């Protein structure tokens, strides 16, 4: 059997509206252009919007996997040919937000054969600290927390890391600072969060990178085209590219771990 080679990354934030989905999409696009097959999974179950960012309207979504015998590869929707796919979630289904462990297991059981085709599985999680968000975040090899310099974003992401570390014993996080005005605001935002974690929670999250404020970002959203495609030379696009490069380095260093299982051993004890 071919060893696992898929790096699972969850993108989280605590607070909504900090650019999580957009970052997931563009990181995925970078990796795809770098020659690595990417699966983008919309895990904002119940209030999905990756499809909106992409301007596509898939007929099926993950809900079909739970309701019907639809094969997993039929639900995967190609964003770009040969290696950039996405798994759409349902919108307006409150039941999905509070998925129980049975349903979660069933979902991943159905998806598992599909995942091995990809080098990266990017999971765009919803905002908040619902059991579903926590369980998904605890499952992945890497957790990327997106923050902005706003105090509300700092507090919510801190709360999210605190819950994950105390309840799920997850203590490794990477931080992306989004929408900072300049590099010094980026650094001070990260430092503030990292010092608080170090002081009160006993671990230090790692700085993955910053993405500067850039008017090309909202423009690309309105055009429903990934920033990396619409404005690859913009400041924000360059920032995202550096982050993708860094993730690829991290993946190389983790290869041995991943080959055993694409998810962490945490999967078994997230049943509550």
């Amino acid at each position, binding site marked *: 059997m071919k060893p696992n080679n898929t790096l699972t990354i969850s993108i989280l934030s605590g607070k909504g509206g900090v650019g999580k989905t957009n970052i997931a999409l563009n990181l995925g696009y970078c990796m795809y252009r770098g020659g690595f097959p990417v699966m983008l999974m919309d895990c904002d179950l119940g209030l999905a919007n990756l499809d909106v960012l992409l301007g596509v309207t898939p007929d099926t979504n993950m809900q079909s996997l739970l309701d019907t015998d639809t094969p997993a590869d039929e639900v995967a929707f190609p964003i770009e040919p040969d290696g950039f796919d996405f798994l759409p979630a349902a919108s307006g289904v409150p039941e999905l937000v*509070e998925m*129980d462990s*049975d*349903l979660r*297991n*069933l979902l991943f*059981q159905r998806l598992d054969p599909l995942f091995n085709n990809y080098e990266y599985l990017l999971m765009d999680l919803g905002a908040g600290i619902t059991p579903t968000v926590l369980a998904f975040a605890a499952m992945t090899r890497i957790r990327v927390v997106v923050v902005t310099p706003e*105090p509300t974003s*700092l*507090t919510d992401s*801190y*709360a999210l890391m*605190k*819950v994950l570390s*105390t*309840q799920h014993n997850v203590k490794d996080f990477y931080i992306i600072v989004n929408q900072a005005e300049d590099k010094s605001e980026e650094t*001070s935002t990260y*430092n*503030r*969060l990292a*010092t*608080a974690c170090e*002081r*009160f929670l006993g671990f230090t999250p790692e700085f993955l990178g910053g993405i500067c404020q850039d008017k090309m970002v909202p423009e690309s959203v309105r055009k429903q085209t990934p920033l990396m495609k619409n404005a690859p030379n913009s400041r924000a696009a360059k920032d995202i590219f550096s982050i993708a490069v860094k993730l690829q380095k991290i993946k190389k260093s983790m290869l041995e771990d991943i080959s055993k299982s694409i998810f962490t051993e945490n999967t078994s004890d997230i049943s*509550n």
Partner: protein
Amino acid sequence: MISCFIYMQKRLHNIRTEGLENLTAELDQLRQLIVSHAQSAPIDMADQQLALTRLVPGLTMESWNKLSERFGLSDWLALDLDNSTYFNLANLQKIIEDLTHKSERDPLTGLYNKQAFEHKLSMELQRVERSNGQLSLAIIDLDDFKNVNDTYGHACGDEVIRTLADMLDASTRGYDHAARVGGEEFALLLPGAGPLRAKALMDRLCSMFADTLIKCSEAAIQCTFSAGVASLKGRSKATGKELFEVADKALYQAKNAGKNRVRVTRQLVEFEYDRSTMVHSNEKQFLFSGSK
């Protein structure tokens, strides 16, 4: 007058849906069972199948065929029990139903007896834990019931008990459970109801009952009750016994406060949530200012 109307409605309602109250819960449980079973079962079991039959009173083959066509229910297998082939089967099922009914019911009032109620309670507790929902339990005790018996005799006492039982049965929703759990003590289990909704319902019942004149031989008896309500929410590990105890305390408070009233306990039977995850003010302060 109002109580009488509700009573009539409930009885009419019962004619159509008797034996179907638990259908939703049954299907729900069945689905969960199949899902969890499918995960643990070996793959070669996938071809196995089983037909389950469930009695659906009041449905004819003709109307089923229409339903089946309209809603695409072709996975369901219908057997007409009115024809002679299944006569014995129908008879047997009827006997089982009668026996189950008798063993679960209080003979005087027709409400659930204590054992059956405790069973319902434990089922509902499991459901609350699973669905992260709400549940309220009301314990109802007739005020000064001994006086009624002493003054009007036991036959009239029974009439008072029957009247309250009918009111409880008639004024609650189909999925609420009413029971007689002691001589003059009743219990009402309200799935999905929080303390506010349970209090509103009990207050209404309390004043309705106090306004009811119960005719017995020549006398017209007026009687009241007191009630204590306990509620729980979320992933509770509370047992039925604990819930009963908390509701009992509230009942005691209602009696002490002068009877003919409802008390909702302030002691929420709630899952002790993990406070270690809470973000404290000093942590927030640090995040806002970068210092303590």
